[in-house]
């Protein structure tokens, strides 16, 4: 569904992605792991057309992702993104945040959009927070609203950029729980995460990004338990035994 072919991305002289090849199939949950600064966020942002890339090709359902092309807006409605720092609209309530896309981008009528937004917020456990503003919600609640906002677009896939890294530890579980439920419904997901346990349990496949390339990839259980590449081994040792 999402395909990356020899993708190169530089910031000025600094080449961050040096030829990335990857494919995410429909209904698949893929976790992207790798050291800090290896370009995981950049990769996701390129897929969502928030960054331009210089060489190679990214496509969604065969349609090329090109920041400058008029098709980009439509592609973005089909591939949603959940950010590390939530990025909820602070001047709108939880309900309005979730309704915003359906109402103004998909141009659904207010009644239908409201009804579905309410359902989605209920589904992520926030039925009692519909009228709350982001500033009065905890990090975990904000991230669940953000997931509901992404779902409201009825996307074919969702990209998650370290959705739990900005959270206090006691709130990580509630967000992962929502993501686990999505995975069980076979939502196509590409998840950048340092939650190795989550990846092992939920992911179908894991990609290890380092030095601007996918160094290793494979079924989650296998790659995370028996990494073949030395750099993968090092990385996993450091993440799972931080001291």
């Amino acid at each position: 569904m999402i395909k990356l072919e020899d993708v190169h991305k530089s910031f000025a002289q600094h080449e961050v992605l040096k030829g990335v090849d990857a494919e995410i199939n429909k209904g698949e949950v893929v976790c992207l792991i790798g050291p800090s600064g290896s370009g995981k966020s950049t990769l996701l942002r390129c897929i969502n057309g928030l960054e331009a890339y210089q060489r190679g090709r990214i496509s969604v359902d065969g349609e090329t992702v090109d920041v400058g092309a008029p098709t980009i807006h439509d592609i973005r409605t089909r591939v949603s993104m959940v950010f590390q720092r939530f990025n909820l609209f602070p001047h709108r309530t939880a309900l309005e945040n979730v309704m915003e896309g359906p109402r103004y981008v998909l141009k659904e009528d207010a009644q239908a959009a409201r009804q579905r937004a309410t359902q989605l917020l209920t589904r992520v456990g926030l039925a009692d927070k519909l009228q709350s503003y982001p500033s009065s919600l905890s990090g975990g609640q904000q991230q669940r609203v953000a997931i509901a906002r992404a779902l409201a677009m009825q996307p074919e896939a969702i990209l998650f950029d370290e959705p739990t890294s900005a959270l206090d530890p006691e709130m990580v579980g509630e967000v992962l729980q929502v993501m686990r439920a999505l995975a069980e419904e076979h939502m196509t997901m590409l998840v950048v995460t340092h939650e190795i346990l989550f990846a092992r349990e939920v992911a179908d496949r894991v990609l290890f990004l380092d030095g601007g390339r996918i160094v290793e990839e494979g079924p989650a259980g296998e790659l995370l338990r028996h990494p073949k590449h030395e750099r993968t081994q090092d990385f996993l040792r450091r993440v799972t035994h931080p001291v």
Partner: protein
Amino acid sequence: MTGFFANAGIYLPILLKGVWLTIAVTFLALTLATLLGLVWALFRTSGIAWLAMATRVFVEFVRGIPILVVLFYIYFVMPEVGLDLTAFQAGVAGLALTYSCYIGETFRAGIEAVDRGQVEAAKSIGMKQPLMMRRVVLPQAFKIVVPPYSNNMVMLLKDSSQVSVISVAELTMQGKMLASSTFDNMTVFTLVALLYLCLTLPLNFVMRRVEIAMGKAQ
């Protein structure tokens, strides 16, 4: 002192005529400057390189010219190219043009102060630039912009006195004429100053309340 009050009673009705004109000039110029300023700001943040650059050059150009010169130019030079404006129209146009550039810069700074993450969130749900501006960026930028914009308003009100040089009979002009016919500089200009304060202080007060109200709203 009794002389002051006795004469003030005579001068005040004359000066009040100027006050109304000051209010009219300020109100019209502010409205135009705000609309134009918003246009400049949207151009500059449009992401369309040539449009942003052209606007930037224009704004820098106007900001580099004293208001007096802009007023002279519009009132005395424009008629030579066929644009014949009354003093009042020229005054409003000059103030509006100059302040649209100040206000535009204020708005631009406000737009750029909105968190990048907001733009990305808006884009990621498929919003195009105009919708994103309307629904996400501008509502947040307005809040940031209220204090510097209030400042622009008060400055514009005071700078409306500049249009007296092209003989618009606003408050300062009325004061000057009255003082030169009565030689009572002290009373006249004290009254003029007080009348300006009667305009600026309430304006400050109202804008402070707006600021507080917007701060409280989410």
